């Protein structure tokens, strides 16, 4: 099937259609809304389901095969975050804070996007490696930690500079003050680190992977109905709400500027396709390759505000939430997923030597 056919096929699934319904509802100012308790519960449920599924699969395949892909994903994710920063700061002329916040939003991963990816593949009858859930768990806090670390470095430097300038001019003895603020900035860094790692997404995901690994397919049987069979239905409900919120954000899209709109489309495409090639090279299956690409392509819009508001309060949340949820998320689930699947299918069909040749040529 050609890309356009696949995209059209993808649009005509309940998940995407209900997402669009949510957007439409928001645009016509309907009062349609999924109650807060439900839309707060669904991400927890989705992550538990993803984790259980991943853990059960990993029990079959073991840990070893996952080491290289995970390491590569970590390195790629960090490099990409730094790359985003350079683009945003230099080309986009955003200030340091917004640049780091946006860089890490796009360096981080989107658990909801991941869920949609899984059911996109399911719908196509394609399997993916279970350990990708574990990569999701590790990547989740990673880009934030990097961004927070870098921001703190910048802030500390600025404060040190200020202090020195101040000390030189006035020669007064409030030496301690600057160090104190740097200290408090360090405390804050550790606090944010702690919170990233103990964040609910990471905890429920890692917990569920371990539980899935422990109980295996047999132990899973009594809860399969809830955590597997209802999975797609739950995403549908959640995407109504995401559509509504994205729809409300569309007004803000104009405000984020052309540069950021371009960024929000180009970066996922670039990162995703890099991911697809790398994962194929690493020997992942067609489905695993798409999920690997999706991890790198996705931007975080649920975890991001929670972490970044505390870590980089100077950054404007309207920028990173709007671009991640209002532009990148719809683009990823509607367009990029089928595109990546098509690419993955094509390059998986290349004879291994060719692919290798292609790569050695390319690098």
């Amino acid at each position: 099937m050609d890309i356009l056919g696949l995209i059209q096929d993808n649009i005509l699934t309940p998940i995407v259609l209900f997402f669009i319904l949510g957007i439409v509802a928001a645009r016509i100012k309907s009062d349609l809304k999924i109650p807060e308790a439900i839309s707060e519960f669904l991400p927890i449920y989705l992550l538990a389901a993803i984790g259980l599924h991943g853990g059960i699969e990993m029990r079959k395949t073991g840990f070893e095969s996952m080491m290289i892909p995970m390491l590569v994903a970590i390195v790629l994710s960090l490099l990409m975050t730094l790359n985003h920063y350079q683009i945003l700061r230099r080309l986009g002329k955003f200030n340091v804070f917004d640049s780091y916040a946006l860089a890490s939003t796009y360096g981080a991963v989107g658990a909801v996007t991941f869920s949609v990816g899984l059911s996109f593949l399911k719908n196509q009858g394609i399997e993916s490696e279970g350990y990708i859930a574990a990569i999701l768990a590790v990547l989740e806090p990673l880009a934030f930690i990097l961004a927070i670390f870098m921001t703190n470095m910048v802030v500390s430097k600025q404060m040190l500079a200020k202090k020195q300038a101040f000390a030189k001019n006035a020669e007064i003895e409030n030496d301690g003050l600057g160090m104190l603020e740097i200290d408090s900035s360090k405390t804050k860094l550790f606090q944010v680190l702690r919170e990233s790692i103990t964040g609910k997404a990471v905890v429920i995901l890692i917990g569920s992977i371990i539980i899935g690994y422990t109980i295996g397919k047999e132990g899973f049987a009594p809860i399969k109905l809830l955590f597997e069979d209802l999975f797609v239905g739950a995403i549908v409900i959640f995407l109504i709400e995401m559509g509504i919120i994205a729809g409300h954000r569309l007004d803000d899209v104009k405000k984020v500027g052309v540069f950021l709109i371009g960024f929000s489309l180009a970066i996922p495409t670039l990162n995703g396709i890099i991911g697809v090639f790398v994962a194929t090279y690493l020997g992942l299956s067609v489905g695993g390759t798409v999920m690997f690409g999706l991890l790198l392509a996705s931007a975080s819009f649920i975890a991001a505000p929670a972490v970044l508001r505390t870590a980089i309060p100077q950054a404007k949340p309207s920028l990173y939430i709007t671009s991640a949820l209002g532009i990148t998320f719809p683009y990823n689930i509607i367009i990029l997923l089928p595109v990546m699947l098509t690419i993955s299918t094509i390059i998986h069909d290349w004879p291994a030597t060719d692919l290798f040749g292609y790569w050695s040529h390319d690098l």
Partner: protein
Amino acid sequence: MKLYDVKLLSVTCEILAQKNVIEILGKHQVSGYTVWEAEGNGDKGIRGKGLQNEKNVKIEVILPQNKLQDVTEEIARTLFSDYAIVLYVSDVKVLRPEKFD
């Protein structure tokens, strides 16, 4: 029963600044407070309709006159510029002033 004068500090701010406010209270030995979720509108636009983290909270603190100044000063200095936040102070009377010292 006699009623004693104390101050009531009301802070309405985005939910992700709640931790910061309560930390500041703690630093000034004010441990009591009451908090609930709210929606609202202000300079930073309508809040509370979308993602859970974009809601507001309202925090109420009964505290003695002598702590009021420091607490409000620190909230204003550290949070006013970066967060959606509003603060007001009023006079109230309580039965057990020692509870709020």
